[in-house]
């Protein structure tokens, strides 16, 4: 067990309203798993990821990393954010070097080259972030998280702002990276298709409050993309989300 959410409950309060974001989340993530958490916007999936990253403390319950309660961010849990978090004033190499700690000093250059190779951006060391496309920026962010050598990768809808083709390509590359690196990945997405393409396990969250309402283990029998079992499962998940048959009062 690498990560465990235990009885997570969380509310966001403002002066006018209170939102019950997450309720009674119990989730265990095994070593080496590619866990996709899928749900509509506002279901609290990003909050859940931020709790694992240590950027957000749950109101009640706790998140454990290898048996220890998470109290803050740490290098053992690399995060790839939804938007680009490359420093615009540093080039690709400097951005990746930023994530390395000083004990890695000897082979830093080599590690950067390897990481860029893995994400298919060899030779882009000296490019500035603004010279890269959105997809390339996210690849650099992934390269940056890889050099941290953390056993787990937390990814918060990293490809959601990209076009469909780029996203499909990055999905394929993500699987390769996962297989090569043997890391545990938690991947947040609102796309069922993306979740089923990537995940060795897919967890479905409901909306307000976010609760686990579905959990599919695909590690033994992974349906290939767009095959009949793939589409059947996607349909089933869509059904659980209440997306298959829109409520009649909402028809326009």
């Amino acid at each position, binding site marked *: 067990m690498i990560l465990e959410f235990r009885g997570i409950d969380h509310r966001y309060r403002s002066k006018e309203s209170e939102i019950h974001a997450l309720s009674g989340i119990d989730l265990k993530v095994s070593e080496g798993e590619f866990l996709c958490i899928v749900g509509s916007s506002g279901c609290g999936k990003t909050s859940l990821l931020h709790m694992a*990253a*240590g950027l957000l403390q749950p109101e009640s319950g706790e998140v454990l990393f290898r048996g220890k309660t998470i109290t803050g*961010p*740490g*290098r053992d849990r690399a*995060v790839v954010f939804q938007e680009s978090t490359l*420093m615009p004033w*540093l080039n690709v190499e400097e951005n990746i070097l*930023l994530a390395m700690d000083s004990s890695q000093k000897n082979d830093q250059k080599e590690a950067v080259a390897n990481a860029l190779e893995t994400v298919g951006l060899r030779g882009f060391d000296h490019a500035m972030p603004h010279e890269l496309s959105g997809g390339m920026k996210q690849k650099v962010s992934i390269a940056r998280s890889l050099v941290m050598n953390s056993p787990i990768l937390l990814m918060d809808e990293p490809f959601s702002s990209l076009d469909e083709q780029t996203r499909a390509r990055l999905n394929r590359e993500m699987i390769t990276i996962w297989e090569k690196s043997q890391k545990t990945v938690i991947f947040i997405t609102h796309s069922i298709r993306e979740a089923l393409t990537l995940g060795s396990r897919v967890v479905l969250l409901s909306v307000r409050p976010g609760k686990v309402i579905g959990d599919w283990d695909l590690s033994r029998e992974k349906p290939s993309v767009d095959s009949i079992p793939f589409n059947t499962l996607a349909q089933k998940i869509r059904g659980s989300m209440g997306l298959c048959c829109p409520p009649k009062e909402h028809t326009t």
Partner: protein
Amino acid sequence: MNHIKNKTQNKKEGQLSGILMILLIWILLAAYQRIALDKPFPYPWEAILALLDPSQNMLLHAGASLLRWGSGFILASSLGIVLGIIMGLSPVVERLFSPLVTVLQLIPGLAWIPITMIVFGLGNGATIFMITVTAIAPIIINTRSGIQQIETVLLQAAQTMELSPRRTFFRVILPGAAPSIISGLRTGAANGFRVLISAEMVVGSSLGLGYALYQSRWTLDYQAAFGALTLIIIIGLIVERVIFSSLDCHIRQKRGLL
């Protein structure tokens, strides 16, 4: 890259024609005053000649002024940036100093004369104090807001990478706030420069462009006065257009903001 070069080229040409425009207006005005009204309004070249006349000591005046302005500005920048950074990072310090900064910002430079006279009397110290105190407010305000406007997600990324406070400061916070800090320095430098000339007129002693300008009232040496004015404008233009402008341009170009 090519179109960026062209852009800078165009900008330089534009600036040059702007300077020619100033000269043209000056010449026309001088010609009118002289020919039609018979007043001793100097032409630009006469002013320049007076400027270069060794008996006028104008370069000495200019040197003294620049030294005061430089000292006041450096003092204001170091204090202002440090205070701005602390205010940007700590809400407690911000609340404590905010009213003071607002007050500093509201007081016009020359209103400091009574306080300056009491504390420093006449001379260098007085002028430098007035420059510092008028230059510092925009530097503090811009530095603070530059730091507060750094995207939260970049700071979160720094946290997840567990960057040391030192690295977070020098690689994330400071570069993130840099454009704003530079714009504060620009305003501060201009404020300081304006008050420098006026301060020298009032609390200056024996040397300085403002002092020379003021003296020409009594000596009726208009050419020297215009020479001093020209030099003031040239120095101001160089500092603003050459130093700050290119620094700002460099930072923005690197980030793809141009």
